[in-house]
């Protein structure tokens, strides 16, 4: 066993080096090699950590939640192992272990913080036996790869019920996630307990219109976005459960989000240096994990205030004095949230959208028709739309039928052409939206032409 594990590890490590020499990131392939040589590798490494493992799964928010956790754990002096974003299948997790392990097979970390693809969850978690599992939300994502959402949810549920005692951190505002509380694990719920934004909710991308237990249409006191909100079933009484971690007040301010969070019976203020309202959910999930592990809510709040967004999570750049934002879009729910963000400022802007259809993006781009561009697109303030990527023209067609005049739409499939043209626009700010496989190439171009702004300290300090 030990010999097989070491040979798998070494093969993996050598692959990492080779991949680096070839200029790749080596985020999944070394793990693939190791798992091929020793299929129980994940289990063996997880055992070494003695279940000091936290798994974050769900459709949106995995990477941000995991990164927030990592920065908090690091600030507390723990050595952490994380998988690189997107490398969230078994091979990506194995690669993370390979990077952290010494040639003798010892892991140089105290905790493993892993984001796991929701569709791969059932295959990998049995090997990991995590101490805590966070489930953020379930939205439609890359349908051609995963089949139907219902199936994904029940696979996660099945996998959870087969795990040894694991503590759950679940989003109370998502009826699909709350279904997972039926397993016998101890559960802690988090949610946003007050309506934050008024306005008509787009119906097209609500995933769960019907009660998961009796099939009646769910009623809502208010929505946050998509199917997230304060729901109840008039048929069987299924409803948003009481929460242990709850945002009591949320204010969306210029450049940051300010919220008051109740953690158990303690209340803390928290300033998130982000434009995105949805990051409140990620922060709440982090408070939830902290509650299970006995971490101080004040310390968590302080660290969240310094959080630096990951690649393409509303990452900020500056180009010739103008603010430039880069955001990943990968499904209708997330795209809608990004559009809401665009509508928040009345300044003029230029918008770039890169739509790719590589394996990692999903081969099928029809999901862009489920984005509520008709209602959420701030037409008047956007001076130009540049469509880029392999399916640039499809995005352009989508914009045209959403009512954008042809004169405002440009199709430039090569990312470099698209980025340069967009940066040459006249808007007061610039927004770059990209699907998964276009994200890193676009980030690289933005670094070349602009400068990343990592200055979280410009926010007023709370202490």
């Amino acid at each position, binding site marked *: 066993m030990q010999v097989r594990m070491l040979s798998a590890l070494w093969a993996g490590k050598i692959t990492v080096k080779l991949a680096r020499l070839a200029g790749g990131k080596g985020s999944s392939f070394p793990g693939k090699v190791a798992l091929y040589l020793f299929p129980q590798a994940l289990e063996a490494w997880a055992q070494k950590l003695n279940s000091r493992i936290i798994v974050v799964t769900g459709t949106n928010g995995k990477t941000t939640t995991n990164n927030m956790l990592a920065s908090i754990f690091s600030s507390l002096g723990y050595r952490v192992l994380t998988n690189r974003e997107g490398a969230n299948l078994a091979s990506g997790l194995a690669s993370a272990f390979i990077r952290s392990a010494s040639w003798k097979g010892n892991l140089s970390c105290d905790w493993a913080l892993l984001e796991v693809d929701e569709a791969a969850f059932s295959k990998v978690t049995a090997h990991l036996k995590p101490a805590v599992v966070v489930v953020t939300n379930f939205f439609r994502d890359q349908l051609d790869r995963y089949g139907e959402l219902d199936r994904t949810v029940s696979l996660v549920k099945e996998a959870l019920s087969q795990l040894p005692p694991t503590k759950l951190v679940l989003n109370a505002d998502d009826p699909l996630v709350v279904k997972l509380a039926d397993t016998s694990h101890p559960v802690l719920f988090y949610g946003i307990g007050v309506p934050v934004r008024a306005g008509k909710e787009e119906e097209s991308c609500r995933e769960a219109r019907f009660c998961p237990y009796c099939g009646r249409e769910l009623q809502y006191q208010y929505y946050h976005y998509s199917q997230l909100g304060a729901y109840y079933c008039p048929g069987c009484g299924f409803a948003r459960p009481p929460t242990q971690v709850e945002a009591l007040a949320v204010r969306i301010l210029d450049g940051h989000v300010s919220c008051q969070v109740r953690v158990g019976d303690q209340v803390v203020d928290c300033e998130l240096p982000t434009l995105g309202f949805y990051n409140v959910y990620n922060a709440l999930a982090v408070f939830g994990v902290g509650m299970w592990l006995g971490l101080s809510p004040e310390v968590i709040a302080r660290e969240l205030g310094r959080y630096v967004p990951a690649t393409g999570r509303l990452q900020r750049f500056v180009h010739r004095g103008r603010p430039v934002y880069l955001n990943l879009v990968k499904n209708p729910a997330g795209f809608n949230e990004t559009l809401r963000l665009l509508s928040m400022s009345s300044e003029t802007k230029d918008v770039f959208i890169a739509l790719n259809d590589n394996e990692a993006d999903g081969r099928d781009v029809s999901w862009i028709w489920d984005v509520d561009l008709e209602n959420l697109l701030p037409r008047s303030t956007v001076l130009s739309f540049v469509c880029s990527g392999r399916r640039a023209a*499809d995005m352009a067609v989508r914009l045209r039928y959403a009512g954008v005049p042809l004169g405002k739409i440009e199709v430039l499939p090569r990312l470099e052409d698209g980025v340069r043209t967009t940066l040459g626009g006249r808007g007061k700010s610039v927004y770059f939206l990209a699907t998964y496989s276009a994200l890193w190439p676009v980030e690289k171009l933005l670094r070349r032409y602009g400068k990343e702004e990592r200055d979280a300290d410009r926010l007023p300090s709370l202490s």
Partner: protein
Amino acid sequence: MLTVCHLYPDLLNLYGDRGNVAVFLRRCQWRGIPVRLLEVRFGESVDFTKVDFLFLGGGSDREQQLVVTDLLPRLANLRQAIEEGLVVLAICGGYQLLGHYYQTVEGRKLPGLGILDLYTEAGEDRLIGDVAVKVQVGGRSQILCGFENHSGRTFLGQVSPLGRVLRGFGNNGRDGTEGARYKNVFGTYLHGPLLPKNPAFADYLINLALARRGLEIMLPPLPDVLEKKAREVILRRLRLRGS
């Protein structure tokens, strides 16, 4: 005034299906043809003879079953409208439920509406990918392109296919047929969605709907440059240059 009916937008809307409705509406509006949208949900009443374009999208087995139970009591009204030339576009699940039945992997036969002489059997693996189909409509041949993703294999009885598969799987991946056509009812596995990628076919459906109301008109052309580009990406990828 043309009436577009999107049937069960809440239950049947799997792969951006509403894009088909959006395109039909916009292409009428851009030409000054008055048009209105009727969204009919589960349990809501509708007179199909008053509708000009009926759209049915895709959904899971469970949703298809709900839809069939809701439609069966008004089948006579729907049949009458279809015999009178109602234009129907049904995609994926919506296409399957127009047939006699859908047989699940476990061998259960879920009844359909029996409007089209066809049946569907669930297969082991899903048929997924870009697809191109040659169709003859309005005396002309066109290439329809799109994306397919279905585990059902559909077999036609006494009904003509919508077209012949050039690339991809089509009805069942075996007999080279794709979709079905009866009068003005079109069933197909092509999404992507279908109409944004195939504006000439969208215009053909608009013409059929107008003709049923006695309006034989030439639709003024629209500047479909973006649509052409989007088609070319797929056609080039499938090595079907042109058109």
